[in-house]
């Protein structure tokens, strides 16, 4: 469906477009590298200015990381935690988005359920997790369910705001042209909700990971949260940071290789700053 150049629209000369695609591929990667390097330097500086057992430098953490990676612990616990994060994330995003869009679309329903949302938003993670474990046993389902219940109200709140800002003229156009239910969701609803989905996703993953840490502390025998709390008992901050950074690295990879390309593709229609 690419338009060939007709009446004055001409495609870029191939030589130009060749260099451009190389540049567009390299510049972001380079920026990220420089950015991470700067971060490491800053960290190193801070660690040498305030030397403390509680704040090891990057080299120390790197050693621990290698050690834990070598004995396989790192990958095992990271894998388990990532699995839990992914499962809870999917459950929370789907349920939360559906509820959020419904509440944002129907003012009366929202008025009724708003106090519930506020309640669930503010129940401490601890309470939900303990109740989950006690009711459903110390198993994965309870753990993941508890995390999802913790996160869902946050998704609801964000998606509700998104649904409230939907432009009615697009929905009207869809009504006139008798769009099917699926087309409506795909072409009218989701593109408008995209920024809210992105916000809910990014802060969502991080919130879920933080709750998974608590869940693992309170009733699982593996996972990064389990390890982090063990090392906290020993006050081994280097190990805590090693596990944290391993997770952050995974997130960074997902962000750079998956989320950002998808997002760029989804938002390329936007008028960019000149």
């Amino acid at each position, binding site marked *: 469906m690419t338009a060939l150049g007709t009446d004055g629209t001409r495609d870029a000369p191939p030589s130009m477009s060749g260099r451009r695609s190389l540049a567009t591929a390299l510049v972001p990667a380079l920026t990220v590298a420089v950015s991470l390097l700067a971060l490491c330097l800053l960290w190193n500086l801070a660690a040498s200015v305030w030397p*403390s*057992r*509680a704040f090891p430098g990057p080299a120390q953490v790197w050693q621990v990381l290698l050690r834990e990676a070598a004995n396989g612990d790192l990958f095992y616990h990271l894998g388990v935690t990532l699995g839990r994060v992914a499962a809870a994330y999917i459950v929370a995003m789907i349920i939360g988005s559906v509820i959020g869009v419904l509440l944002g679309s129907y003012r009366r329903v929202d008025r009724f359920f708003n106090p519930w949302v506020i309640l669930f938003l503010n129940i401490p993670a601890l309470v939900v997790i*303990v109740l989950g*474990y*006690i009711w459903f*046993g*110390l198993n994965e389902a309870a753990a993941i369910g508890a995390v999802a219940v913790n996160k869902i109200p946050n998704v609801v709140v964000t998606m509700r705001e998104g649904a409230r800002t939907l432009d009615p003229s697009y929905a009207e156009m869809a009504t006139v042209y008798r769009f099917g239910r699926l087309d409506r969701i795909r072409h009218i609803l989701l593109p408008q909700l995209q920024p809210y989905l992105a916000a809910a996703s990014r802060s969502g993953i991080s919130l879920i990971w933080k709750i998974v840490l608590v869940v*693992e*502390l*309170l*009733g699982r*025998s593996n996972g990064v*949260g*389990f*390890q*982090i*709390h*063990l090392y*906290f*008992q*020993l*006050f*081994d901050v280097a190990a805590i940071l090693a596990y944290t950074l391993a997770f952050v690295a995974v997130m960074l990879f997902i962000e750079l290789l998956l989320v950002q390309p998808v997002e760029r593709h989804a938002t390329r229609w936007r008028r960019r700053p000149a």
Partner: protein
Amino acid sequence: RIRLGVLKFGTVSWELDTLRQHKFDAANGIDLEIIDFAGEDATNVAMLAGAIDMIVSDWLWVSRQRSEGGDLTLTPYSTAVGAIMVKEGSPIRTVADLKDKKIGVAGGPLDKSWLLIQALSRRDLGVDLSATSDIVFGAPPLISEKAIQGELDAVLNFWHFCARLEANGFRRLIGVNDAAKALGALGPVSALGYVFHDQWASENPDAVRGFVRASAQAKDLLARSDDEWLRLAPIIRAQGKELEKLRDRYRQGIPRRSVAEEAADAGRLYHVLASVGGAKLVGSAPKMAPGTFWQEPRK
């Protein structure tokens, strides 16, 4: 077959590792499954969720559960308790010197050790420590770290944190056991015990008996053999002086009295604690719940 939930790298796991390493479990006809958790609270939750048979906890908690209708009971594990630690060169010499000092307390205001120290100070010195000193509650590792940093003048922490501090230039101001003795206990009382349900114990009497025996054998070995401690060093995560301090304090903490004696002392301490901690700590029960200490059923 016993499912035992413990804090990984906690002091209990030292004993359990020895127990398993030397096959004391099989020797006593039990099949011990150890489930690691990352926090003390986690073991409590797991117990209440029915996922495990046995955890390690303190008798006061057991008593409270019992008086609220639960059927938990315990068998002594260790009498080792914490102490107030100060820096070697600190001018603080007695409890009276703690006035106007910044004291870090691990756990919280309802921590048993803290209440005993308070009771002692009130009785002997007429001083309410929580009013005259600046008390900071916090997580045990954080409190220890802050003591080393020097932000806190004195800390009350759990025994293994104290042992590590001792190896790092701290000295004991007063041990909680000293306080307990001063307040009427005749000997060291097991702060912690293996906790399980009465019902489970009566259904699996052999398992409990076997476990108690196996535990005793392990303790015995740990009391005798220094090599065993060297073997445990990686789990304990300590070496040299720190390891020796931990070993010595652990050995001191091996319960040697009969269950009945301990139960009687615990009952006495209960009154002291109830008077200091009030209903918030012990619940509505005026006395320690009978049966808190598990008595081997006579055959």
